[in-house]
């Protein structure tokens, strides 16, 4: 009887700890080589044929078709620069510039990584169609209602993510990054319920 209790305790600890830690590692994306710039997070190593079992496991769960190192790097922001989750009821101001890249696109997705799209119209921007200031930087208003200048329409109610893809950039290629890349700041202006 005593043996049975001890065995049960041992198996319980093994399963709970083992499965739990594995799940956390896969789900939270225990990843090495991430680039974190303010609210923007990228995992360029997902696009490389590196032998990282954690990466492979997490990748198998999402089923995402990632950008290769030779193609580009994808950054995702789920919060503003203040750390609050991006909210469809709020107006945000993106200001600054992306790191050097031959092409970049900025789009919206819902929290399940599904892109937001309205028929033929793609809500988003790319570096070939954006109004810039005299110094080359830009400002984009992310808001549910019409805004002057670069307006990225968001949907009222619900959360969203900002997805920036930098194509043909040197960011992912080097293992060592001496200079932290600069990404646009995401500033929350006002919210309407």
């Amino acid at each position, binding site marked *: 009887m005593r043996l049975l209790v001890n065995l049960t305790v041992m198996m319980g600890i093994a399963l709970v700890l083992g499965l739990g830690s594995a799940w956390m590692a*896969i789900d939270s994306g225990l990843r090495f080589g991430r680039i974190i710039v303010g609210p923007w997070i990228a995992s360029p190593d997902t696009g490389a044929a590196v032998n990282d079992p954690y990466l492979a496991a997490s990748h*198998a769960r999402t089923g995402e078709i990632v950008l290769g190192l030779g193609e580009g790097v994808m950054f995702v922001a789920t919060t503003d620069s203040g750390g609050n989750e991006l909210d469809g009821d709020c107006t945000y101001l993106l200001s600054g510039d992306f790191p050097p890249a031959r092409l970049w696109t900025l789009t919206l997705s819902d929290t399940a990584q599904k892109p937001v799209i309205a028929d033929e119209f793609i809500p988003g921007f790319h570096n070939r169609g954006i109004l810039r200031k005299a110094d080359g930087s830009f400002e984009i208003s992310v808001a549910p209602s019409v805004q002057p200048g670069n307006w990225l329409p968001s949907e009222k109610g619900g959360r969203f993510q900002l997805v920036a893809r930098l194509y043909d950039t040197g960011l992912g290629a080097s293992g060592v990054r001496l200079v932290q890349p600069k990404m646009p700041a995401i500033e929350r202006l006002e919210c309407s319920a």
Partner: protein
Amino acid sequence: MIRFLTWCIAGILLAGIVHIVVILSAPRYGTQDALHRFAGTSGTGTFQLIPHASVADGTLPGADVYFAHALCRFSLEENAVRIRAELNAPFWSLAVFDLQGTNRYSVNDRVAESGKLDIRLLTPLQRVQLRENDETGTDAATGVDVPLTFTNGFILIRVFAEDGYARRKTLEDLQSATCGRDENRPAPDLLSQNIESGGN
């Protein structure tokens, strides 16, 4: 009490093993169905166009809506595969995935001259055989040779298309893209050559 603690420590050690087993086996039970669903069968030599998010609910997860995508399933078992396309876009890129969906090779349009894509995927052995052919002058070398350590996988071409008009033009270009077997037959297999000469 000490006995009980020993059992607990054994449980923690076992937990470590469970953790490693789960992590290592996860890719085998993953949901890499998107590539398999769209790619069709290998050996057709043409690319399957992936429906854009504006017209279809199911598209490639993680695909950029500013891009048009085309997918081809390939096999190097019989011969090398040659990818040819003529793309008129400000930017495009190409990625090679293995059957598990891991990105094994990727390149962008800098490798191509004036939008002409010409890449050959081959195994290291096929590469050696083709090199021998090239030296004898029977076959002209093609654009870029990419040796792969696996034989079956997917080729994904992404082309920047900023609006519906550009996308329709791009899809026409992608429709005529090919990913068929390389016509440059490799040199006869050395082993079978020996057997043949031995029989004579």
